[in-house]
């Protein structure tokens, strides 16, 4: 289907999450794509290779020798003023680890899609959030989509946010391996001209330019390093307000908007279950089923993981009981869950005394059925009715002992 036909017919295109990302990258008129294949990300860069080969996208397509190089090449391209993109999963993200800090520390505006997948060992190509969660402290802005439309939209929002002069930080857009990446959903594609009007390419004040030489990647000795890190921390904090502005403008252009943190069925609920990613739909279904049984549980959806949205604690502090569903294990940490650590810290700093129950689920792609989600919702409801104690350790949903 050509771009023009999509426009004429205003079709919802049936797209996998990976192809939705590739279309968004095309529509943002990205200049440089560095590509290294890894399951389940590969079909993003394959689709982009098709767009470049067919002339639909005028971009440099770089075949690099590793993910370390993929991100390094994207950083170099972005430093020269180009709009750069790469995508990865799991071990690929792990191999990029040191370069993740360099991208954010050098204040590189770019977007990377992370198709979430479990980390080795044992080797596992299926979905959980261990790669996403382990990269949350690398200084990137992290947007987590819950469906393929959001994956398409977050790439576009990501470039606008990343390139703002008051932000200038890389953006990671997460979508869940297979559950989104290889599952076809209807996606509203937007007019590429309109997308490009929303994310216009502007000449940045400082780029690598032979006419006006500058140095990127310099030494920061103890006399200077600290100041640059504070600048970086402040920029990431500003990214929250910047996101809200970009998201509101996106909604004016395209009619869809995404709050960094959203509560569904919050008004009369006894407890809130906090989730993120593709299983949001499963947990929402379970919440709705439980509510028909009279269990008043609400759902909190995190779409911005970094910076951690300040309203999470503001909203959650109104509830005595919180459930947190995390698709990753934070080995040896206070709660055993990345999400719980953040939520508990933010609630404590707010002065709240809400009790948190952590549910770990779907590790290594263990199927998450509606029964599993219902188990979580019912368990949280029993806690909220004081029929059960708040466990000090995470509840591992669906594991065999």
């Amino acid at each position, binding site marked *: 289907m050509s771009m023009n036909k999509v426009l004429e017919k205003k079709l919802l295109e049936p797209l996998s999450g990976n192809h939705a990302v590739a279309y968004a990258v095309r529509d943002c008129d990205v200049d440089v794509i560095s590509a290294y294949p890894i399951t389940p990300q590969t079909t993003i860069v394959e689709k982009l290779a098709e767009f470049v080969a067919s002339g639909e996208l005028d971009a440099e397509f770089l075949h690099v020798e590793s993910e370390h190089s993929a991100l390094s090449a994207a950083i170099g391209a972005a430093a020269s003023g180009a709009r750069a993109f790469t995508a990865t999963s799991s071990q690929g993200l792990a191999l990029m680890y040191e370069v993740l800090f360099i991208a954010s520390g050098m204040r590189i505006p770019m977007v990377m899609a992370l198709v979430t997948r479990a980390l080795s060992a044992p080797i596992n190509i299926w979905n959980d959030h261990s790669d996403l969660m382990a990269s949350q402290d690398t200084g990137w802005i992290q947007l987590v989509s819950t469906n393929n439309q959001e994956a398409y939209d977050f790439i576009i929002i990501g470039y606008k946010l990343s390139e703002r002069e008051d932000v200038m930080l890389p953006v990671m857009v997460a979508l869940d391996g297979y559950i989104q990446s290889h599952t076809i959903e209807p996606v509203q594609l937007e007019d590429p001209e309109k997308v490009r009007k929303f994310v216009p390419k502007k000449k940045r004040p400082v780029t690598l330019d032979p006419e006006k030489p*500058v140095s990127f990647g*310099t030494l920061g000795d103890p006399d200077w390093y600290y100041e640059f890190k504070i600048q970086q921390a402040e920029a990431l904090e500003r990214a929250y307000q910047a996101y809200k502005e970009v998201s509101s403008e996106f909604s004016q252009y395209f009619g869809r908007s995404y709050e960094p943190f959203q509560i569904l069925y919050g008004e009369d609920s006894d407890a809130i279950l906090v989730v993120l990613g593709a299983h949001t739909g499963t947990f929402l279904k379970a919440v709705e089923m439980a509510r028909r049984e009279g269990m008043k549980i609400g759902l909190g959806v995190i779409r911005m993981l970094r910076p951690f949205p300040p309203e999470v604690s503001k909203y959650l502090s109104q509830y005595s009981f919180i459930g947190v569903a995390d698709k990753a294990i934070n080995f040896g940490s206070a709660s055993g869950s990345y999400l719980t650590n953040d939520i508990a810290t933010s609630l404590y700093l707010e002065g709240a005394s809400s009790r948190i129950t952590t549910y770990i689920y779907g590790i290594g792609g263990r199927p998450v059925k509606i029964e599993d989600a219902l188990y979580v919702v019912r368990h949280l409801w029993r806690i909220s009715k004081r029929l059960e104690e708040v466990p000090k350790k995470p509840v591992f949903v669906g594991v065999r002992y």
Partner: protein
Amino acid sequence: MKKPGVKDLYIGAVIINPPTSLTNKTGSWRVIRPVIDQDRCIRCRICWAYCPDAAILELDQPYEAGGKKYSITYVVNYDYCKGCGICAAECPVKAIKMIPEVEKL
């Protein structure tokens, strides 16, 4: 003078006013200095090529040594020479000696 702070510095440690490496006289790091014996030097250019800081200068300066006439002379730019000694190690005729900057106490 107060050094630039969080609000003054350009982001990302990007150096926007090059070449700052010229004002940063790294020669002050040196503890031993290379000294070229011009009479032994055969003008082979190896020290010039190996110097990692481009601190060996090739001057258009004639010099006569041992009955030979050379049109060029090599000198060390002590503003930037860090005293690593690579030139002395590579010199095929041992014309460069490394001399301590400070006498032993």
